[in-house]
């Protein structure tokens, strides 16, 4: 039973990771690509780790997988924040069809 549930979680995780990678290729600029890279890939990977936890339960492997989830969450959000701010400061332009840019005003 727990094998089946863990397999379901791992499959969901792999599918979301795949969506994230498709997004990385299809979306037009750095900023939008980061959107898909942080969201889909984080939940996908967390889902894989959770599947692993269900399979192994409260053992050394299962606990490590469970602790990796919050660590991954914080690491990926902070990394996304650093990357998006860094690329803006570096001068990478937003996509042509961007509708609004409030951040431009505080740069000077």
């Amino acid at each position, binding site marked *: 039973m727990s094998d089946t549930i863990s397999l379901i979680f791992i499959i969901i995780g792999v599918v*979301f990771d795949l969506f994230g990678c498709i997004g990385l290729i299809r979306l037009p600029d750095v900023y939008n690509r980061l*959107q*898909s890279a942080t969201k889909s890939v984080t939940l996908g990977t967390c889902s894989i780790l959770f599947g692993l936890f269900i399979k192994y339960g409260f053992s050394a492997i299962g606990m490590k997988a469970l602790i990796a989830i919050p660590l991954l969450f914080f690491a990926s959000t902070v990394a996304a924040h650093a990357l998006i701010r860094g690329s803006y400061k570096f001068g990478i332009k937003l996509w042509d069809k961007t509708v609004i840019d409030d951040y431009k005003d505080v740069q000077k």
Partner: protein
Amino acid sequence: MKYITLFIIIFVLWLLMTYNLETPNLIVGAVVALITSLVFGKGFLQDSKKFFQPQRYFWIIVYLFIFIWECIKANFDVAYRVLSPSMPIKPGIVKVKTTLKTDIGKTFLANSITMTPGTITVDIIDDEFYVHWIYVSSKDPKEYTNKILGRFEKYLKRIFE
């Protein structure tokens, strides 16, 4: 006081991670936790009394469920935008104002924004967040502030302030 709190957190994390209660492991864990808490204790919470107020933990659990639900919604949202042939995106950077005061509250709010539908925090200047949004659905500041922050702000206020 805050050094002791940090020490306990790191030590428990170490025990969970190694999953082993033998004496050498305990000693190594204590030494590592001591060094880490001495180095990073200065930047830890200003007010560690808040750690011992049980009602905050209740709101953390409530917040966790809301957050996971929003996170799952975010993923379906992004997956839909990525997979649909016409790619319905309308990106932009908007400015939103928060009412949270503490640094840790703002940090958590920024991280929550990053994990929810189509938004990434670009920068925080004082109490203004600059948020990159994949689909800017309205131009009215009040409306989008409510859309981006409204779900989390009231819970974070109860947890951190």
